[in-house]
């Protein structure tokens, strides 16, 4: 018998509390929303003078590409290279891709995006980010890849290609530094 009565009282109480809270909330919100715009969602950071990126890691004597290619006819046929660049072995989705999917035949010293828009070697991360978008996002936030310098100031990022060979991006295994010495028995 008592249960429904308590429920009814509680209902009224809840209604009153909610009404007061709503009124209070509306009052406290109105001045805040007026003069101040809500903080913008974090977007890709603009080029920051506090961040430095070393130049792209070109193989010695290979760049600019146009120094050889400017005088060569363009052959857009997908093929295995047998005369030059034979040291480059592509293990990066090689079934679906070859040189001119990233390198640009018309602007030899540049790369191009899937859209055909040219992109410089210094901004190659835009090209990588077409497929590896989440890595690009993390890299911009400083979470993917190595940063050196100041945690509160000037820092150096590396380009994707500084750590990952674009033609064979998987990290190669390396030799570990020596294991710690096991503690010796006392008296030995």
């Amino acid at each position: 018998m008592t249960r429904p009565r308590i429920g009814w009282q509680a209902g009224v109480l809840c209604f009153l509390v909610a009404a007061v809270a709503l009124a209070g909330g509306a009052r406290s919100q109105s001045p805040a929303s007026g003069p101040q715009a809500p903080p913008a969602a974090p977007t890709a950071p603009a080029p920051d003078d506090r961040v430095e990126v070393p130049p792209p890691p070109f193989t010695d004597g290979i760049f600019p590409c146009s120094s050889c290619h400017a005088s060569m006819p363009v052959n857009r046929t997908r093929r295995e290279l047998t005369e030059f660049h034979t040291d480059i072995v592509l293990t990066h989705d090689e079934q679906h891709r070859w040189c001119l999917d990233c390198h640009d035949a018309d602007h030899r010293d540049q790369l191009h995006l899937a859209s055909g828009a040219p992109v410089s070697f210094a901004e190659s991360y835009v090209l990588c980010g077409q497929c590896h978008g989440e890595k690009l996002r993390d890299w911009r936030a400083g979470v993917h890849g190595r940063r050196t310098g100041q945690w509160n100031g000037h820092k150096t990022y590396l380009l994707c290609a500084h750590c990952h060979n674009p033609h064979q991006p998987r990290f190669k295994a390396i030799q570990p530094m020596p294991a710690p010495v096991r503690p010796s028995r006392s008296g030995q």
Partner: protein
Amino acid sequence: MKPDSPGTKVSRRQFASCAAAAAAGFVLTGCGPRRLHEMPPDRLKDAIREMERRYAQQFGQTVAVSDAQPLPGVEFAYALDISRCIGCRRCVYACVEENNQSRDPQVHWIRVFEMEKGKGVDFSEADPYYAPPEVPEEGHFYVPVQCQQCRNAPCTKVCPTGATWTEPDGIVVVDYDWCIGCRYCMAACPYGARHFNWGKPTIPTGKLNTKTHVLGNRPRPQGVVEKCTFCIQRTRNGRYPACVEVCPVGARKFGNLLDPDSEIRYIIEHKRVLVLKEELNTLPKFFYFYAT
């Protein structure tokens, strides 16, 4: 007990002389040696000059001992990407060189554990002595462990001399001059992050890092405990710790927990993050995460 029992009667003269002795003792104690964090600035300067003189004599090199204070509005935190670490131990040796750890007997502030992928983070099955020709080994992952800079640090509570404490920027430090070598803190630390100088520390000639901090990498004597200080000599000057900069895969991240734009905040807010032995409520400021 009766208030007027003969045993408890103290004459006015006795009381006065006891009080005078206690006051004299109090004053004399105040004049004596102090822990580094309670020293007045001018005395700290003197103490540091004395240290620099002693180290110059000992190592035949000019050694700079800094007393850089915590930066306001800064609380340091660290994050390590378990999905990236390849167990190469570059961090271990960069730390040894940066922080003047003893080469023999060997002291390593960072210990890298090799674990099996199927078993997850399990220290009872972990191997710190792995030595294959190349890492990472198939089917394994690596968890480097160093001081977790706990907010609720068990080590500082057990120190009988107050020789270890948490600085305002969150770094747990040791005063090597007040450490009596009882190693209670080592027993209290659930991470094995504190290390004792069982022998006289040795650093090869010319290998001493002469940029030191009074609470960090200044040379230590035998018989004291030492630990990771987030490279206090670097980080209080705005630099990244040595282990962060040396990591070849960029698995190590460092920054200011109070700065909403820092890498560390991005990781905590966007990634899968864990702390070691969470159930102990030590509240580490060293986070492990999976970036992928």
